[in-house]
Structure formats: C-alpha cells, structure tokens
C-alpha cells in the first residue's frame, strides 16, 4: 500500500477558495502564519471572506494584507492589539469582529476538527463574552455551551512536511496550526521543507497527512517571515 502524493502549486490550491468562504489561518504573530498562502489569496481576490485567526498580525504582515484589500467581511479572533488598522476597521464598522477567549477559540476549532458539536466550559461566565451564549446547568454548575467551529478552507504553515501531508512545526510556530489543520473541508499547507513520502519520523509527525488536502513548498522565505525589528 502506498500513500497519495498531495504536492501542488500554491495557485492551484488557493484557486479552490470561493467568495463568502470561511478561512482558518494558522499563526500567532509571525510564527506559523502562512505568509505565502495569504499573498496568493490576495492575488486570487476572493471576497466577502470570514477569517478565523488568533490575531490580525501587524501592519504590513500576514492577514493585514487581506484586511487592506477589502476581502474580509468578518474576523473571528482573540486579540488585535498589534494591528491598529484592524482595530480602526472594527471601530468604523468596516469589519465585523467576534472576540473569543484564546483557549476557547482553540477548543472550538479542535471540537470542529474532532466531530464534536461543542464543549461545556465556565470560561467567561460573569463577563460580556458570555452574552448571547446558551447556558445550562450540568452536574450542579452553570456552564456555557461553546459551539464547534469549522471552515471551508484552512491555511497552514509547517516547518517540514512530506508529500502525503504529514507535518512538523517549529517552536512557537505550532500554535493554532495543528488544530486548524483538522477543522476545514479543504486544508492547504505551505512548508519550508518538503520531503518525499516517509521523509519524517512517524513518531514525530504532529499533524497526520490524512487531514491535509494540498501541500506546497516555499521557494523562499520572504522578509515577512523574518525576525521583526521593533
């Protein structure tokens, strides 16, 4: 038995995205943000998108390009502190923003990727983040039901991959990537190092290739991937 080869070009993979799609984008700050896939999505031009991403990167980096090109209608996120432009769009009602507690966003995505309908948590009870959410009594305590979250497409950045789509991540570039890689109908991974099938140690694979639909190799690490000078 052989495992399939899922290597393709960035453009071929991104061409699957449609107007109105929900797109999960990996990354926390620069580490793990699929900068090259994001640029391809800007070039592709799909509009009216809902993005799911921990943060909005910084001006001139990552999903900031999609905000500036006007392709994003709605952003499901946890913190925009490093992108004043995203906050301005939100404050002027040019961008819908839904804030989640960070670990709850992670769990909602994981639940979506795990075929669960939702999770029960007491996180946010007594705060405005609980407003509008269904609450129940379970085993004598108040709990919020947080709904599972899935996307049409997930854009993933991996340090190493094989052509079957097995992935390894580097340091804190892991963050939301392995979770989002489970939770979309079409999962596209860019990787710094693309290896033949079996090029990774089966014990060190962090995302199994069965979750991945397309894998593309980065020809170069553009300056957006570099250390940010502040």
């Amino acid at each position, binding site marked *: 038995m*052989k495992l399939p080869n899922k290597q393709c070009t960035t453009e071929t993979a991104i061409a699957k995205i449609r107007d109105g799609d929900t797109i999960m984008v990996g990354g926390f700050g620069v580490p793990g943000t699929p900068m090259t896939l994001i640029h391809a999505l800007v070039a592709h031009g799909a509009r009216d998108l809902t993005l799911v991403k921990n943060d909005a990167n910084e001006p001139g980096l990552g999903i900031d390009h999609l905000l500036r090109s006007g392709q994003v209608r709605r952003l499901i996120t946890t913190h925009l502190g490093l992108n004043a432009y995203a906050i301005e769009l939100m404050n002027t009602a040019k961008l819908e923003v839904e804030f989640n507690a960070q670990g709850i966003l992670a769990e909602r995505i994981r639940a979506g990727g795990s075929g669960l309908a939702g999770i029960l948590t007491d996180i946010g009870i007594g705060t405005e983040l609980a407003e509008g959410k269904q609450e129940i009594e379970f085993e004598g305590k108040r709990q919020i039901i947080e709904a599972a979250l899935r996307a049409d497409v997930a854009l993933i950045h991996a340090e190493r991959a094989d052509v079957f789509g097995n992935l390894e991540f580097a340091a804190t570039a892991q963050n939301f990537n392995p979770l989002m890689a489970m939770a979309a109908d079409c999962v596209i991974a860019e990787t710094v190092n693309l290896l033949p099938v079996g090029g990774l140690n089966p*014990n060190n694979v962090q995302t199994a290739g069965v979750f991945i639909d397309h894998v593309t190799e980065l020809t170069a690490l553009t300056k957006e991937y570099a250390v940010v000078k502040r």
Partner: protein
Amino acid sequence: MSNARERLLARAARDVQPGMVVNLGIGLPTKIVDHLSEDLCVCLHTENGMIGIGPSPSPEQADRNLIDAGGAYVSTVPGSAFFDSATSFAMVRSGRLDLTMLGAFEVGSNGDLANWKIPGKFSPGVGGGIELAQKARRVVVLTTHTDRAGNPKLKTKCSLPLTAPNCVARIYTDLAVVDVGPKGFELVELARGVTANEAVEATGAPLILPHGELGVF
C-alpha cells in the same frame, strides 16, 4: 469456510478504491490488509492510533509497540504516522474515513447494525464500533451469512442492541454480496457454487434479485 473466507476477503478488497482512507474493524476485516496490492494508493487507519498500515509482518519482524486494534502486529509504509486515541477518533467523527469494514452479529434490512452485544451471553464492550458505524462515509460488513447454528444474520429487523442505526451500505458474506437498498436487501453477486435460492433461504428478510445476470466471486 476457509476457502470461502479467502474469496470473501478478496472480493471485499476489490471494493477498496485508490485514494480512500479506510478503517478495518477487528476480526475478519483486519485480514483485508493482506488482500490489497502493495501498489494500491490507500490510507489504512487503525483506531489505536495509526495511518499507513503495511503488510502483516512475520512473527520475527513483529514490533512490540506496533499493533492494530485487534492486537495483531502490523507494519508501517513510507509516510505512516502515529497519534493518540483522541486524534484517531477525531478523524473518524469528522468524516475523514471514506470506508470502514466491520464485523456483525446482525444486519437489519434498513441498514441497522448490531455487532457488540448479545445480552446475557456476550458483552465485551463496544470499542470504537459505534463511532466507525455512525461516522464513516461508507460502512460495509464482512460476515458469515448465518451464525454457527445456521440462523440468518441478515434480518428484517435486528433483535440485538444496535451499534448504530441505518448505517450499513453493503454486506460481504461467504455466500453473496448484498447491498442495503431503499427497499431492503438486494443481491449483488453470488459466491462460486452458491445459487440464488440458497442465498435467499439463508437470508432472514426478503432478498431482492436483480433483473440481469448475477456476477460470481
């Protein structure tokens, strides 16, 4: 049965299509692995935490840490990956399995599956069966057509506790290949040397015969 079993396995293996992600349930279905071509591009999943099962190893080659869900030693192929039990069933419940092949005590003509409990007699637990039966995109059953006492396992309605309702699409037995269609069981193929009448008599529910000629496996 041994010869019939091998033909059943070979026939079921022919329905494993290139590109599929496939789970093989414990018992008869795990034997399918040795009926698949080494050139076939297929991802075999085992619920105890692995994608990419290869051919069965010899006893000397067995790795103490490398088994399938039935406890049989297995091998890897290039690109295999290991993961924990939560991730394994995340794949199952989120619809990543194109096909699962399961054993059965009973199959109902509406596709109900009972394969985990015979009250008062046999109740080893459900394992991963419920999730496989409920969530794989296609669920097929490999089984003998009748039990050891000769009673039919394909019935109008299951009498045993269900694993999952309305899930089975096809049944491979020592006598026949049977589909679960909108009106019940449909005979698809016969095992070599078995007549349509024998298959009808061994089935505990109406068995719809096709108009054309029946294939033989």
